[in-house]
């Protein structure tokens, strides 16, 4: 570089000036502008033409991409369901057909809620995103979410598959939870939901052992259990384990305010609880195989670990995959409490920017994914459970029966009521399926948890700035190597090594000097 600019000062100057301006501009855009203004200002690229551009950001592998083989057809009695094209393409065609407008979906994906949040902070602009409930709460708290239009809730419109088909159970949760005085259902439409629990190898771990968060501290499975590498999930599990006695006590369970008290206990973020959780997690760290981000499924299938803390959707996938190798895994939900989670669609103000055409397309996208056959395609493809129960449309229940229902001549079957999800009434006899008994511990339990499990399900709300700072610091402390743990001997050896290094270096230099 020195040579290139050695002589021509004029050129050098002008380049310097130009680049200085460039850097300044970059900085202006990158740092000084409000975060949601985008790197080069939110340029509305879709201003031209009558094509609506819908920018959707979803979890990775969280939508059916089509391309199914012939033998993958879901042959329900009411008709076959098969994924030929990606749902995104199907949506574009469907939208044009029903709304008479062209839409182009720019589909992108994110890896974690935090990644999505950071992407939004850096200035990526999306119209429709699908984060988890706590991130939805955070976005709502920061006033970034565009409320759903009234038309979206119009049950007369038959294209409104979401409001006509969402499970009464999910609907009631969304209606009864608020953020900044606004109930969730005004801003968010559920996509997938599930609970957390343990996938385990029934030949090694008993159901009883797997049905408590204390499995993580069980010395019988020393270094054979993996746990999610995620502060929220591990904190929830730690709280569950630490409060195990209280949460499973007769008094507590039969309390009339059980559901509310349970949610309070599981969302305990007092300093004392955080400190105890830290001690607990530091303690079990040694007992665990590892904290994992996504290797847990594979390790379970290959038998490296005997139990794995898992989200129900991934649990279904794990059990399915293992079954293909004739290896049977079970699922258990801890007795103390389980974390019920949602991923839902929210529109972002920064993206929609009050463009009614865009909002219409975004809401149509949600509705299209909520059409029962599309919900089934997604469920089949990703293993998670759709929030859609279908309403009048019976195909979701039919699909459930298609997946898990017992053969007619099968023995050892049980009745499995799923009324809470499909009808709103747990006792409703219209929504009972007959399943092989083993399914009570397998995919069915994970995909459509029993009423018992739902009773002890607790939502984990989002931590505000201060809480999350303390909890994140706790988590870093759990994961970091504490310098105070270094034994003195290691320090001495290290010191000797450094001294040796310095001596060698000096000797090397002296030798050089002698040579010349």
């Amino acid at each position: 570089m020195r040579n290139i600019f050695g002589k021509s000062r004029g050129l050098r100057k002008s380049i310097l000036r130009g680049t200085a301006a460039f850097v300044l501009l970059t900085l202006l855009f990158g740092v000084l502008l409000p975060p949601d203004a985008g790197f080069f200002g939110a340029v509305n690229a879709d201003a031209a033409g009558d094509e609506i551009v819908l920018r959707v950001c979803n979890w990775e592998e969280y939508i059916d991409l089509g391309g199914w083989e012939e033998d993958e057809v879901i042959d329900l009695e009411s008709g076959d369901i098969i994924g030929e094209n990606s749902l995104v393409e199907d949506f574009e065609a469907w939208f044009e057909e029903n709304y008479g407008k062209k839409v182009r979906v720019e589909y992108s994906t994110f890896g974690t809620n935090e990644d999505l949040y950071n992407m939004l902070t850096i200035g990526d602009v999306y119209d429709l995103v699908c984060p988890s409930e706590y991130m939805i709460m955070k976005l709502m708290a920061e006033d970034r979410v565009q409320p759903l239009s009234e038309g979206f809730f119009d049950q007369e419109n038959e294209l409104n598959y979401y409001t006509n088909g969402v499970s009464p159970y999910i609907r009631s949760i969304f209606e009864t939870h608020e953020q900044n005085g606004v109930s969730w259902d005004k801003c968010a439409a559920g996509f997938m939901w599930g609970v957390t629990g343990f996938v385990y190898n029934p030949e090694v771990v008993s159901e009883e052992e797997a049905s408590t968060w204390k499995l993580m501290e069980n010395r019988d499975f020393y270094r054979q259990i993996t746990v999610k590498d995620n502060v929220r999930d591990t904190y929830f599990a730690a709280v569950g384990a630490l409060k195990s006695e209280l949460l499973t006590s007769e008094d507590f369970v039969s309390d009339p305010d059980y559901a509310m008290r349970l949610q309070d206990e599981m969302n305990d973020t007092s300093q004392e609880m955080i400190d105890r959780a830290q001690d607990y997690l530091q303690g079990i760290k040694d007992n665990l195989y590892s904290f994992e981000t996504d290797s847990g499924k594979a390790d379970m299938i290959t038998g490296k670990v005997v139990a794995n803390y898992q989200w129900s959707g991934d649990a279904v996938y794990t059990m399915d995959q293992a079954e293909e190798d004739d290896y049977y895994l079970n699922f258990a939900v801890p007795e103390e409490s389980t974390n019920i989670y949602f991923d839902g669609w929210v529109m972002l103000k920064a993206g929609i920017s009050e463009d009614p055409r865009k909002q219409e397309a975004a809401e149509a996208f949600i509705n299209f994914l909520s059409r029962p056959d599309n919900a089934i395609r997604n469920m089949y493809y990703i293993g998670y459970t759709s929030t859609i129960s279908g309403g009048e449309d019976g195909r979701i229940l039919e699909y459930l029966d298609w997946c898990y229902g017992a053969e007619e001549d099968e023995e050892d079957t049980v009745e499995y009521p799923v009324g809470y999800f499909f009808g709103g009434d747990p006792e409703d006899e219209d929504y009972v399926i007959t399943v092989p008994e083993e399914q009570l511990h397998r995919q069915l339990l994970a995909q459509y948890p029993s009423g018992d499990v739902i009773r002890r399900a607790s939502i984990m709300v989002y931590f505000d700035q201060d809480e999350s700072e303390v909890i994140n610091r706790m988590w870093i402390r759990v994961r970091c190597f504490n310098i105070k743990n270094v034994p003195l001997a290691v320090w001495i050896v290290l010191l000797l090594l450094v001294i040796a290094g310095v001596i060698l270096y000096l000797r090397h230099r002296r030798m050089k000097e002698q040579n010349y």
Partner: protein
Amino acid sequence: MKFSRKTLGIPYIIFLLIFVVAPLIVLFYYAFTNGQGQFTLKNLTGFFTDPNTVGTLVYSLAIALVTTVVCLLIAYPVAYILATSGLKQKGVIIMIFVLPMWINFSLRITALKEILTVIEGNLAFYPFLNSVIGMTYDFLPFMILPIYNTIVKLDGSLTEAARDLGANERSAFFKITLPLSVPGIVSGISMVFLPAMTNYVVLDMLYNSTYIMGSLIGSYFSAYNWHGGSMIALVLLAIICVFTLMTNGLEKEDARTGGALL
């Protein structure tokens, strides 16, 4: 304006500005500000007073140090033998060592994971050892190549002269070949040591649940603490700078002796 050699430099200057200078400025900005955008040194003092962050630094240094030493111990003999032997298929053998680099890194580590599981049974019992093995596997070619290149370009007449003057094989090696190959060693070390401090993917994949510098930065970012994360990145940068200055010093001394860098 006349087209000259200087004009050729413009794309590189722009590249440097966009991908090196600008991110650095942003990094500095975040490292020395707090959430409200005010100047603060708290991120810096916070780093050095927290036993966990300092512990992570030490742990990373330990992993990087052991990895580098192991790499060097394996790479030097290989490079030396290859460079000095009369083998005709030298290129093929070098290729065998470089070959893994052509395969995707996470695939390689996944394969290594399976192999280690067969050998060790339960990987979770040896997290430190596994991390070092994984890193060594990953970085070995970066150590072999520069050393090989240096030794292969050494003037053979120097060793011959040493032998003529009565040095035995051993002292010819220690007095001539080894000192002359220092530049290769130095550049090998800097290509192994620095990445080894931050390559947390290897640790993740081999189930080492302890954070090193890379994962620590990541954890700060996923907690939206860009300021603390940037400061850690900056501390790393400072370490790298000091390291590079030191090694540069070494290299300059040896420059006259004709050492070659990769």
